């Protein structure tokens, strides 16, 4: 994909993605074929699993609104050798039962696939209670998590299909919006647009941020790289892309808390002089308005215009 296929308008860089439907389809199919797979729910999306639940009542369990139990039971299932999948809104999957993530999975040495929905603020009418911009940063305090942030439903399917057979700890951050086209997943940072040898630096776009980043930087000589997997972070890939760029200036654009991966960028480039700027959801204030996702994108400077302005200033254009 090049900048010419991305559009400058807000809607063109914010395409609806049926990731939750994809999750339901992939997990339902896997439940039919893998007797070691179990799905735990806490009411959210339970209606969408009604059919597969009827086929596998012992392996599709809706616990009700009990999110501490959602993670605790996932840990227990894993202790019996099963592969648990747990799903609800990000705020209730990661933030509310955070100690269960730390102890009932990590400290027990067990794994699970956690699939959240709602992104950072995908149901803005519900307000702050249903916003979870800190989910990836919180998980980042725990060792051993793989974190996927797909930007397209097809990527979500591939990442999920890759995660289900394992026994490790995987967080799949599903989104209801993203890019018009899927990109390669599971290969670290993928260059989507290559800058020249005299380019101004590297822009790293995570998941749903890609196409607005391409639109926002279409007039800049920069390398734009994409990833749908932020943990483990592809430090070597960033080093390689930075070495090929004209300057070691890194612009990081993430759809969750600003700077969540800033320490990874710093670690990747620890032995060379570099500049970096992190864009993402603001850390310093709650946005109390309701409205639309586009309203919140603008408030956090994550719309195309906001990213473009930040990029021009950062790259000293």
């Amino acid at each position, binding site marked *: 994909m090049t900048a010419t296929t991305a559009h400058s308008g807000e809607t063109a860089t914010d395409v609806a993605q049926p990731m939750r439907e994809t999750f339901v389809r992939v997990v339902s199919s896997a439940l039919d074929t893998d007797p070691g797979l179990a799905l735990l729910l806490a009411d959210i999306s339970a209606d969408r699993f009604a059919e597969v639940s009827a086929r596998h009542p*012992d*392996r599709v369990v809706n616990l009700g609104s009990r999110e501490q139990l959602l993670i605790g039971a996932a840990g227990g299932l894993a*202790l019996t050798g099963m592969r*648990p999948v747990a799903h609800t809104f990000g705020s209730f999957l990661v933030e509310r039962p955070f100690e269960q993530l730390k102890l009932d999975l990590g400290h*027990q040495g067990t794994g699970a696939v956690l699939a959240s929905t709602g992104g950072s603020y995908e149901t803005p009418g519900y307000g702050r209670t249903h916003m979870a911009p800190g989910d990836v940063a919180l998980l980042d305090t725990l060792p051993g998590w793989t974190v996927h942030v797909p930007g397209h439903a097809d990527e979500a399917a591939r990442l999920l299909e890759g995660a289900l057979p394992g026994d490790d700890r995987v967080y799949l951050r599903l989104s209801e919006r993203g890019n018009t086209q899927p990109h390669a997943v599971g290969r670290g940072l993928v260059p989507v647009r290559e800058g020249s040898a005299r380019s101004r630096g590297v822009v790293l776009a995570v998941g749903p941020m890609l196409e607005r980043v391409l639109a926002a930087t279409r007039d800049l000589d920069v390398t734009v790289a994409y990833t749908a997997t932020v943990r483990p972070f592809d430090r070597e890939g960033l080093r390689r892309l930075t070495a090929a760029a004209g300057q070691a200036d890194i612009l990081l654009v993430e759809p969750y808390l600003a700077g969540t991966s800033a320490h990874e960028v710093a670690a990747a480039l620890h032995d060379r002089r570099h500049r970096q700027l992190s864009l993402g959801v603001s850390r310093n204030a709650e946005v109390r308005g309701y409205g639309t996702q586009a309203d919140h994108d603008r408030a956090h400077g994550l719309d195309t215009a906001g990213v473009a302005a930040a990029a021009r200033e950062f790259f000293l254009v």
Partner: protein
Amino acid sequence: MATATFSRYADLTALVGLMTGDEKHQAAAASTLDVLWVLYDRVLTVTPETTDHPDRDRFLLSKGHGPAGYYAVLAAKGFLTVGNLRNWTESDSPLGHHPDRTLVPGAEISSGSLGHGLGLGVGTALGLRAQARDRPRVVVLLGDGELDEGSNHEAIAFAGRAGLENLTAVVVDNSSATHGWPGGIAERFTREGWSARTVPNRDHAALYGALTAPHDGVPLAVVVTVV
């Protein structure tokens, strides 16, 4: 030293004596010693040779503080050596003031923070049920103070409605809950559809009877009153 020489109930006090700890942990150890012994001596089907067997019974020590009694019973039953007990809590010892399942042979869960064992137990019971393993039991030991944690009530309510017959909660009641449990702890479980018994902690026959009481189609709660 061969553990066979320390394999009786009468040896547990000496085994606990090999370890030292603060007074609270000592008291916690004493209150759980009898029910732990009855469980491992007469109720649970698990041995040092079957700690990974899929059909073993699972014992989950949720109340991870005061594990000296637990370690003593594990040593008496051959899961640990007596030598393990002598240097407990040292940096190279597998035994800390809270057990770590990755370090302690026979420990099903790592615990210490209150309110995690019953949720793990529910998941373990669900996992066994999904695998059609009807024989193994999942026994979780909690304290009455630990019952304050809301996570337990998520697990108690769900396990009752789900009819997790293979799940047993043992609640050691030494009246340490700050605001108490008016009406008794057993009622908290029966209200949610569990079968519940209350027995004194020193009466091994009563403990055995309660732990093996029929409870068709529902989970079992055994409240052990420390007297």
